[in-house]
């Protein structure tokens, strides 16, 4: 693992918490999990994505 991972930032649609994911999860079918409220959501549901 290098510090410079290929990542994108997302915001949780339920609580707004921002966190980042490996690019392998971008446009994927597996739901992300918010580390704060544990809400599961697809990246397409996120109100904000930074990549």
């Amino acid at each position, binding site marked *: *693992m290098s510090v410079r991972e290929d990542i994108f930032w997302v915001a949780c649609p339920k609580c707004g918490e921002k966190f980042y994911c490996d690019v392998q999860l971008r446009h994927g079918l597996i739901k992300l999990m918010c580390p704060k409220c544990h809400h599961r959501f697809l990246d397409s549901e996120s109100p904000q994505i930074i990549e």
Partner: protein
Amino acid sequence: MSKDLRSYLAELEQHWPDASLRIGREVDPREFHVSAVLQHLENRGDQRVVRFHKSRDLEGRPTDFSLAYNLFVTRELCARAIGLAPADAKMPLSLEFSRREAKRIEPEIVPPSRAPVKEVVRTSRDVDLSRVPMFRYHEQDIGFYLTMVAVMKDSEENFYDVSFCKNLYVSPKRLTVSLQRKLHKHLLNIVEKNEERDRETPVAMVIGHHPAFYLGAGALTTFGNDDYGTIGSFLDEPVRLTPSETLGEDFLVPADAEMIVEGIIPPHSAEIENPFGEFSRYYQPQVAVPYVDVTAITFRRDAIVQGIFPGHPGHFNLGSIPKEGSLYREIKRVFPGVQAVHMPHSGVGRYSCYVSIKKRREEDGKLVGTVPHVFTNQLQFVVVVDDDVDVFNEQEVIWAAVTRARFDKDINFMKGMPRSDRVIIDATVPFNEPFPRKAVVPREALEACVLEEWIDHGKAVGAAPSARKGKHVGS
């Protein structure tokens, strides 16, 4: 008696009582108690093994488990774990590590009746991981983690791989297996070989054993090495193994562990894990990894659940010490003048490397600096210094870099590497131009001076406050 975690802790308390610390108050996994205590201790420079004597479980219920942390927090503790004197904690430790890696002691198989880890056996409906203390360490960690090693068996080649691998609690019967492709090549190879045939992968997590067991698990062995034999070399005795409870008689697990979690990784399984504050001191990005359906938990009645504080000194030592000895040997093959190799905590034990050499030709510093980059893919930054610089003293290394390197020609880059170019700084004294001489106290004077004979252990001279009352120096 075979070596195990409790025998090590008892030995430590008996022979080195100042090396460990007891925490009597009950810790709760839901409240960051463990990492708060460990962070405070680190902030005040307290580098002791920490025993938390009471812990609640994931639902806040009291347990019979205690916890052990900071087993690898100093190089001196790592040295002691493999039977070296604390004074040998620098390069001798790395070289001994490298020697042990090359040796094997074959394991011994014992029946379950002689396996302390089988004192309590929970299978099928009785499996409930929420009753095991697991912890979140950093603010944004997604959940509760185990942070020790996983054991897998390659059934075709008949060898065991034992590697560090964290596990996120998913449910009372499910954990993730954090098989990051860049970090856990060996274990992932076994999973992927099974997946090609649509087969499940049995796995066992070893939660608590003698620290030499884990140092051996961190050894840089090749895929196909039977790691139990290598771990025996670090323990300096055979690892005692016993048949697993649910993975078949021929899947062997460490008999002297504190706790074993057994399970099955279904083919092509995927579960989300992370963020998790990792060795880099950053959160690892969320990612999909395989999961394990837990089939058994076996443990001692008063098991000691061992953990690593991720992204802190013990974690750095587990990264650096195994690599230093191997790098020393690789450099020695092409450059006999290498003196010492160190991967400092400032580079989290993985990203930077300091090498000292007895320089003979002008180009030596630059050439030697390329070697570590070839053998460790995580490495970003190498500084090569002369043998008058202690690579274990970062202040000296940086002093050499800022006084001896000419940055217009002594900083070199290995171009085209993944994500970032790699850096080599040649901080050796140049041969091809006049250069100042390092100021040193005469060796004869140092050797003749026995410091204790010179220190006045009575009142400090002229320091009696009453004698100076009312007077102003220089008035």
